């Protein structure tokens, strides 16, 4: 990935600072994007509504003067939507960054390699057949999404494997074929079940609209835990980039580490997909942008990708909900508008390298 050499020199000691700055930008973005929307509500009023929901200080916040609809829009619609966007963007980006390192493959992205479709397929099965078994407060839809995604990823990886290697071309081909196939079956199920084509479009293009607090709360803890756990493997991911034999000779338990990373990444993606549907290319664009600026070290790449992914996702969602306001676009359309050309650019770059 030798680029043009234009690159910030990042001192190891700056990692904490970078994370801090990105976190601040994320928090500001959350505030900013909660203010912007079809209904014009003043920033100060937004802050008052949010504070009025906080324990302890809510006694001092009076919002009687604001219309009830404001409270509903901010508290039950926009804020959970923005927070869900952060979680989805962060999960997809971190998983993308980890998979690109794991497969030593710049094109690995949860959407491109079929994991997202596998998750959506699993979720659809749970929805269509009305399966209802929740474990540890995780809904059956999320659990089935995880099972579907795991099945898809092991299928894709095994089909793509060739002489103990996973070449870019076969990974892309088997990922896209599997993804399209599962999406087709999923759409078929939905048509037969609900005749609601709009729902299918929103599910296969992905949307953050109209979810409320409940799904956000149910996936937030498992998603955040899996993201934290992923950071346990940053050293191993770095070493894997220097080659598997090298990693093995340094004492890395290569097969086991790869399995853990694959399962963790698949898990965080399926949690997101089970709520938002398939949102493509986020896990491709964000890690590349972050790597371009901060370098290949996963110690900074993983957390920074998650934070930037969160910011990117809520920005894309802002476009999705305001560009043809009061109508909405599925946010997956916006990410694909960015991601498609970017994907082609990367393909071209990697072809040149080969």
């Amino acid at each position, binding site marked *: *990935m*030798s*680029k043009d*050499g234009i*690159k910030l*020199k990042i001192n190891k000691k700056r990692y904490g600072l970078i994370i801090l700055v990105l976190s601040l930008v994320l928090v500001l973005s959350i505030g900013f994007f909660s203010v912007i929307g079809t209904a014009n509500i003043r920033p100060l009023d937004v802050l008052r509504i949010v504070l009025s929901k906080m324990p302890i200080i809510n006694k001092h916040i009076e919002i009687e003067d604001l219309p009830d609809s404001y409270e509903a829009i901010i508290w039950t619609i926009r804020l959970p939507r923005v927070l869900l966007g952060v979680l989805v963007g962060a999960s997809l980006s971190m998983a993308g960054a980890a998979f690109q390192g794991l497969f*030593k493959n710049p094109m690995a992205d949860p959407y491109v390699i079929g994991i997202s479709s596998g998750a959506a397929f699993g979720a659809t099965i749970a929805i269509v057949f009305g399966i209802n078994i929740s474990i540890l407060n995780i809904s059956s839809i999320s659990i089935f999404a995880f099972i579907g995604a795991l099945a898809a990823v092991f299928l894709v990886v095994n089909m793509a494997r060739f002489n103990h290697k996973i070449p870019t071309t076969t990974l892309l081909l088997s990922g896209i074929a599997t993804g399209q196939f599962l999406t087709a079956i999923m759409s078929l199920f939905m048509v037969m079940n609900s005749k609601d084509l709009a729902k299918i479009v929103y599910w296969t293009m992905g949307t953050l609209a109209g979810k409320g607090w409940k799904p956000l709360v149910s996936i937030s803890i498992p998603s955040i835990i899996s993201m934290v756990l992923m950071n*346990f493997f940053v*050293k191993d991911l*770095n*070493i894997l*980039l*220097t*080659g598997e*034999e*090298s990693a*093995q*000779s*340094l*004492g*890395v*338990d290569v097969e086991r580490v790869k399995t853990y990373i694959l399962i963790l990444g698949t898990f965080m993606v399926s949690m997101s997909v089970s709520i938002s549907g398939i949102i493509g290319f986020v896990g491709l664009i964000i890690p590349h942008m972050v*790597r371009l600026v901060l*370098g*290949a*070290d996963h110690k900074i790449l993983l957390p920074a990708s998650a934070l930037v992914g969160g910011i990117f996702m809520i920005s894309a969602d802002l476009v999705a909900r305001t560009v043809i306001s009061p109508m909405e676009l599925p946010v997956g359309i916006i990410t694909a508008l960015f991601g498609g050309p970017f994907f082609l650019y990367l393909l071209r770059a990697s072809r040149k*390298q080969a």
Partner: protein
Amino acid sequence: MSVIDVKDLQFGYRSEKVIDDLSFMINRASLVSLIGPNGSGKSTIIKLLSNIYRPWKGKIFLEGQDINSYKRKELARKIALVPQNTIINYEFTVEDIVLMGRYPHKKRFQREDEEDLRIAHRAMEDTNTLHLKDKIVTEISGGERQRVIIAKALAQNPSIILLDEPTAHLDLNHQIEVLNLLRNLNKEKGTTIIIAIHDINLATIYSDEIFMLSSGKIVDKGRPEEVITKGNIEFVYNLEVAIDRNKYTNSLSITPINI
């Protein structure tokens, strides 16, 4: 004193046997070259010794103890591997790469500290790569990269270094540079060095001992003068050669003559 003791080793890929009933010993602090034609099993032996491949049969003893009884990191503190033609396409600095050699000395959540940095810097000094430490590894030459990979191996603080074709893909001057470096390590620190190498002349100059391989068997082993003979070369490479003593280095040198 042997540091590695290989007994009745058998190994192959799929159903094809590559290493057949191999037994040998490696003396501590020696510099040993494995030579032989393509497919003779040089690289395979290197990978078996570094425990990347599991033998079908037989055992490898490291300091008298079965290599499989070592924990992964424990083994990596004793044996370092420099794989064939390592290409790193990711933008790590040279220092990042060398510090990876400290991995087997650290627990999962332990950060690299001053001590690790000091060891990494010494490894870079020894391999003449310290001036490259902030360079991006994708932007240095092949010879420099090979030295960086050797620095990473040194940072592991191993008593044995295995190298798979360390001079392939290098210009002659860089080949000599790398081999000089290995000889110095061997002489000054007593590091045991095992090299799979194609170039017989270079192997003859640098090695204490040469193992000549053919079809997964050791045809002959011993001091270069004992192994590099007209008969052996003809048998293993099917090539007629003249063997002279080089008047500058006083080492043997072979020249193919049926050309």
